[in-house]
């Protein structure tokens, strides 16, 4: 029975559709926060001496007179990275869309464990509050970056401003976040394996469901490593243990009363999570693109089984490459080679999938909706960012590039912008199903065009800055040898402010369409998967009390079906096959 009280219906809801939207709303709040932080950083990089109005009033200690101090810059960087990676790129494409769409796509009424699901969201929400609380402690947020390298992250106040309470809050927040994601992953796996409706064999599952399933397997392993890492870090900080702190460490002229720990242990634990996390962010995008491209190409996805095999291979290989983040840690060259080889191998399945996408749209009569445009944009930025990965995978080249803007450009393209484009594609595609109203296509296309131009203007020049030796993590480039990069940094800042402003169009479209958009029919895109066989928005129990019987795979486009050139998955078997 659908709950009637406001709190049970919209706040502590057990309905996967509400929880999915809650995750997306959390992601939206987080992405706006992260974007404002990046604006502040970009402004300071371009105009190091200029004051930012009101900032001096908000943060009198860290930005006296409105000029960002180097410490505040690092705090902003840490919070930008942490918020974006954990609370945007993990929550929105995986937990957000996955929660809303996955149970419907497999023909279930809800997730396997609705209570765990609710708990998962609220635990994540608490983690976000704890992280944001770091802004409000006297010394501000930590300055250790989103990777929080030990030993400086483990010893407390001596390591610098924000490394006291701020860093503890960071570690606690991430530990809580892990618990939320473990509960979510568990739920996704159980739902996919056990709640599929009759006829929904594994090979008939839509690609998006496959991608979320693989992502949740990755997430289950990755977050269950990060959780103990954070627990050990917290113990080092508050209980005086020495898991990550070596003997005889002197920081800020004070001998640290710890001994026997290994800072490298943190790096290993962190990156054993950290690299798979990249795929937790991007694989849902893979699924969304593989799901949406055939709809607007009106052709089946090329090599569907190969795509699935490649996604599985990426998931597996993602656990063998973490060391490529640590080439600079004094690693044995043999180990570096051992990590470099799988890093190069993992590009093979990624390349195959990309080529299959391009093959799918080759010769197709594309329907240029905004969702399709963002899919094409995804392919574009993923390739642009992926190619720079080939260079970084070589230990010898990485030694030069690792500390430069080349890496910043690389991962923002391949992980940040690509995943964001996946989120945008999913939003424009599933919005009608979520809210029962269509988004404005004209505004959507303007949003896409300007965003695509904007992100290339931001991140492409960073590669050249990196090649020229422009160091990352510095708050200003006023020294002699780096002065030459300043004009380009100003250009990037302009592009970043412009691209950020363009997102206001998206926000306006989002809210306007939610209340004023044209009414959406059940299947506006003529797609095949189960979510399009039910009303928009779906009723409380998704299928109105009956269990759909699936007779077809998700990929039957370009065939003679009962309603046009496609066959819905819910059509009886043998019906309408070309």
């Amino acid at each position, binding site marked *: 029975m659908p709950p009637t009280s406001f709190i049970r219906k919209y706040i502590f809801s057990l309905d996967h559709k509400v929880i999915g939207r809650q995750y997306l709303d959390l992601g939206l709040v987080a992405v706006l926060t992260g974007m404002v932080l990046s604006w502040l950083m970009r402004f300071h990089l371009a105009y190091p001496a200029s004051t930012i109005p009101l900032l001096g009033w908000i943060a009198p200690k860290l930005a006296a007179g409105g000029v960002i101090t180097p410490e505040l810059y690092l705090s902003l960087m840490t919070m930008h990275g942490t918020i974006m990676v954990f609370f945007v790129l993990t929550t929105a494409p995986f937990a957000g869309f996955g929660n809303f769409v996955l149970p419907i796509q497999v023909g279930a009424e809800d997730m*396997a*464990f609705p209570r765990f699901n609710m708990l998962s969201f609220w635990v994540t929400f608490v983690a976000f509050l704890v992280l944001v609380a770091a802004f409000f402690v006297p010394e501000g947020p930590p300055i250790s970056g989103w990777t929080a390298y030990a030993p400086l992250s483990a010893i407390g106040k001596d390591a610098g401003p924000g490394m006291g309470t701020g860093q503890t809050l960071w570690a606690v927040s991430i530990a809580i976040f892990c618990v939320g994601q*473990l509960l979510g992953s*568990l739920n996704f*796996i*159980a739902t996919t*394996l*056990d*709640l599929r409706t009759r006829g929904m064999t594994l090979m008939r599952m839509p690609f998006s469901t496959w991608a979320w399933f693989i992502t949740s397997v990755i997430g*289950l*392993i990755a977050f*269950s*490593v990060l*959780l*103990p*890492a954070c*627990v*050990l870090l917290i*113990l080092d900080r508050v*209980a*005086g*243990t*020495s*898991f990550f702190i070596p003997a005889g460490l002197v920081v800020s002229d004070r001998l640290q009363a710890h001994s*026997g*720990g290994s800072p490298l*242990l943190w790096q290993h*634990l962190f990156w*054993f999570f950290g690299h798979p996390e990249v795929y937790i962010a991007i694989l849902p995008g893979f699924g969304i693109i593989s799901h949406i491209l055939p709809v607007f190409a009106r052709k089946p996805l090329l090599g569907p089984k190969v795509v699935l095999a490649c996604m599985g291979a990426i998931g597996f290989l993602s656990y063998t490459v973490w060391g490529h983040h640590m080439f600079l840690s004094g690693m044995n060259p043999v180990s570096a080679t051992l990590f470099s080889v799988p890093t190069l191998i993992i590009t093979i399945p990624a390349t195959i999938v990309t080529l299959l996408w391009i093959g799918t749209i080759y010769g197709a009569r594309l329907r240029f909706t905004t969702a399709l445009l963002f899919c094409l944009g995804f392919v574009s930025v993923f390739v642009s960012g992926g190619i720079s990965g080939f260079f970084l995978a070589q230990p010898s080249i990485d030694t030069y590039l690792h500390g430069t803007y080349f890496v910043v450009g690389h991962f923002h393209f391949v992980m940040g912008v690509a995943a964001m484009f996946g989120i945008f594609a999913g939003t424009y595609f599933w919005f009608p199903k979520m809210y029962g109203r269509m988004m404005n296509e004209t505004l959507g296309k303007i949003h896409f065009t300007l965003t695509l131009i904007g992100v290339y203007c931001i991140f492409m020049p960073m590669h050249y800055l990196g090649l020229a030796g422009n160091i990352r993590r510095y708050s200003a480039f006023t020294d002699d040898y780096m002065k030459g990069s300043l004009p380009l940094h100003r250009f990037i800042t302009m592009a970043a402010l412009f691209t950020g402003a363009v997102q206001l169009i998206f926000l306006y479209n989002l809210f306007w369409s939610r209340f004023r958009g044209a009414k959406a029919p059940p299947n506006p895109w003529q797609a095949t998967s189960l979510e399009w066989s039910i009303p928009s928005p779906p009723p409380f129990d998704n299928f109105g009390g009956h269990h759909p019987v699936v007779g077809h795979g998700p990929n039957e486009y370009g065939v003679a079906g009962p309603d046009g050139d496609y066959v819905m998955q819910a059509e009886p078997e043998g019906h309408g096959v070309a």
Partner: protein
Amino acid sequence: MIGIATITMSFAAYTSAMVVRQSSGADWQAIPLPPILYFNTLVLLASSATFVIGRRRLAASWATGASEPAASPAAPGMTWLYLTLGLGLLFLAGQVLAWRALAGQGLYVATTPNSGFFYVLTALHALHLLGGVAALLYLIGRLTRGSGPTPVNALGAVSLYWHFMDVLWIYLLLILATRL
């Protein structure tokens, strides 16, 4: 819904195994393990055995008394479940004694990396076992009330989890005994 609980519990189990496994990686000054740990191990093994017997008895009573869907508190298996619960709590109490024994030798969580790992691993295991105790209490509550369908899946899931905690402890004890 059949089997979901079991599968998920095994995933939960797998997760906890990863959690614990990943944190082992230390090899410094050895610390003597408190001998009570071996007694605790026996207690935990015994609790698994009583759980097996209890589950068999319950299943047998369900198979024969098909007209009576839920087991009454007097069912023969219940005694064994209570025994399991008691042994589980005894194990936890024994672990507390082990910690006190270490503390008595002046070994605290921050004293050496080894004692740190000892406390963290045993505490994490105890925490997980406490979850098992809570699940067992919930199960006993459902069986005692006797209303609703027989909790076959829940019984299977809790039993699997309990045995897993047992296996996990043996694994931890081996690591602690050989690596610390």
